[in-house]
């Protein structure tokens, strides 16, 4: 944990009665970063964000923002702001009044407030006529932008997002994900985003933290989380994956016999005396044609074929269990269920997870 972190969480514990929602969270978020915290429901991510904005108190631990300790500061005095899952727009105010709300609290002049509100409407690509619109007249995506404009009007040092896109339909969500990333680049603000959706996290974030049972499992850039997960949980959370329980002897030679390892595999796939899981993502598994050879080979039958839009997913029943293979639609296999196939993958596409089998 670097001391330079802009937002620094030190050993945060949050208990509700006997239930420990957060169990020692350490995290450093850099200035100007788009940081996403991903986890299934119940992982404690919403509790964490409520602590960060000040809607709940930490049980133990410290939160430092820009070198200043803020965990004892009430929410209305913290230089942070949150976009709620429900957006929490004020239904009795117009779009303009909503955006100006934080400015009005600071007693800025009506003219200055209006200028800033119109600037923010422009920034979020909403027409200026929306200034006088009622909130109930706005569509879902427009409300989203109004909520963002209101949060930006507050001019926070960090902007928090509590799954604001989860209630929207797929297409609008995809559009807004990209807009949000774009907005992050244009404003240069620090964004901390919470979601249960891996895709949302991958599209937008600079770095991702994965949470499980009140703890941070892994913090890394998206590629690393996807390609080099530290645990079975992270591997499975980040999409389809094939995991093989393996062990190795003192020289690092694989002892598992179900993988038809190519003769004289000299590559250091696993550390000596390793016990754990060998991971390979479905898109790296190939169907073996005659004359081709891979580091690892398995034979079995096609068990199922599923169309995933741009890709086709196959399930292959082998002695090592069901293996998932993904192909681009153009590389679709000319085969049907029950056909015998051999699949293979190379060791440079694998990742060893030192985790409980």
């Amino acid at each position: 944990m670097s001391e330079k972190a802009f937002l620094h969480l030190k050993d945060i514990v949050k208990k509700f009665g006997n239930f420990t929602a957060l169990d020692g969270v350490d995290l450093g978020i850099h200035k100007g970063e788009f940081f996403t915290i991903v986890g299934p429901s119940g992982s404690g991510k919403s509790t964490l964000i409520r602590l960060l904005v000040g809607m709940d108190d930490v049980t133990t631990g410290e939160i430092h923002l820009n070198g200043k300790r803020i965990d004892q500061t009430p929410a209305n005095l913290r230089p942070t702001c949150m976009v709620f899952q429900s957006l929490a727009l004020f239904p009795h105010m117009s779009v303009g009044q909503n955006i100006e709300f934080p400015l009005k609290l600071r007693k800025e002049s009506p003219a200055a407030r209006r200028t800033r509100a119109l600037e923010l409407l422009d920034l979020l690509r909403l027409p200026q006529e929306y200034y006088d619109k009622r909130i109930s007249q706005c569509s879902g995506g427009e409300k989203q932008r109004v909520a963002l404009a209101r949060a930006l009007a507050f001019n926070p040092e960090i902007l928090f997002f509590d799954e604001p896109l989860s209630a929207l339909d797929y297409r609008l969500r995809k559009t807004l994900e990209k807009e949000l990333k774009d907005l992050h680049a244009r404003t240069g603000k620090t964004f901390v985003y919470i979601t249960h959706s891996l895709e949302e996290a991958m599209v937008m974030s600079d770095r991702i933290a994965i949470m499980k049972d009140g703890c941070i499992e892994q913090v890394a850039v998206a590629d690393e989380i996807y390609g080099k997960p530290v645990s079975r949980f992270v591997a499975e959370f980040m999409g389809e994956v094939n995991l093989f329980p393996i062990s190795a002897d003192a020289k690092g030679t694989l002892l598992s016999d179900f993988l038809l390892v190519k003769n004289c595999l000299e590559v250091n796939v696993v550390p000596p005396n390793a016990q754990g899981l060998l991971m390979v993502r479905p898109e790296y598994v190939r169907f073996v044609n005659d004359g081709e050879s891979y580091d690892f080979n398995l034979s079995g039958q096609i068990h199922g074929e599923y169309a995933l839009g741009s890709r086709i997913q196959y399930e292959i029943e082998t002695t090592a269990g069901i293996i998932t293979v993904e192909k681009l639609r153009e590389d679709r296999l000319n085969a049907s269920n029950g056909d015998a196939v051999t699949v293979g993958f190379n060791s440079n596409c694998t990742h060893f997870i030192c985790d409980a089998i």
Partner: protein
Amino acid sequence: MNALDRKLGFLSSLPLTILLLISFLAPMAVVALFSVMPAKVFSLANAPDFSSYSVFLSQGYYKSLLWSLGMALASTCILLLLCWPLAYGMAKVFGRFTLVITIAVVMSLFVSENIRLFGWVLTLMKGGLIEGHWRAFTGNGFDSPLYGVGIIVFGLVYVYLPFMLFPLAQGIAMVPDDTRQAAYDLGATRWQVLWQIEIPLAAPGIVVGSLLSFVLAAGALAESKILGGQAVIAFADDIETAFTFGQNWPLGSALSIIMIAIIGGLALFGVSKVDLDAIMGRKR
């Protein structure tokens, strides 16, 4: 299909609508007509004059009207301040304990208003429950708070509390928790959240509760008769006296029409300002 539904709905509601119109509007029409009859007649077959309305001004009936409206206003304001925290607790904080409060408040409605007011008289009168015990133990008595304006307002507050409490709790329940949190997060203080978020969003409940308790208190006479010992005369008391003791139906009618006009106007104004559908649960 929709048009047919609407037509059938209209037709099937017609008998009851006519019955309600006759039973509500006919007495009002009779009262309105009597109010423009000469004094002390018992027939509508007279040339209209407005003498009863001039009596309202010349014989000081406006004073009791002002007293009634003033005490109603005072009790409504007190109720609003008193019920806001309680209603807030019922809507947002107490959880299951809300049911206990609801039952306790509703139970009080099971006993007639007059009997409950006499209960207060026995409690507060000189030699009553409080003063009597106090004197027995300390030897010093004190004056009864009964028979004054203050105790009448107290009676109004006591009797009409449920009519403020429940609409107010309903109104506060309509304020989404996250709008309050969002306002706080955006830098608002507790007071700013109250004035700029909670009160505007709970406005339907505030208006309905205030109208109910104001209208009922303005037309109340038992509190001034029983607790107040007629220290001040309620306007409703004047109306009753005109019809019964005074045997002056045109005067009673004129006073009634004045009361109906003021309260009806106020109610229409209040209702026009808020979204009643919201509190009736027809939206959201």
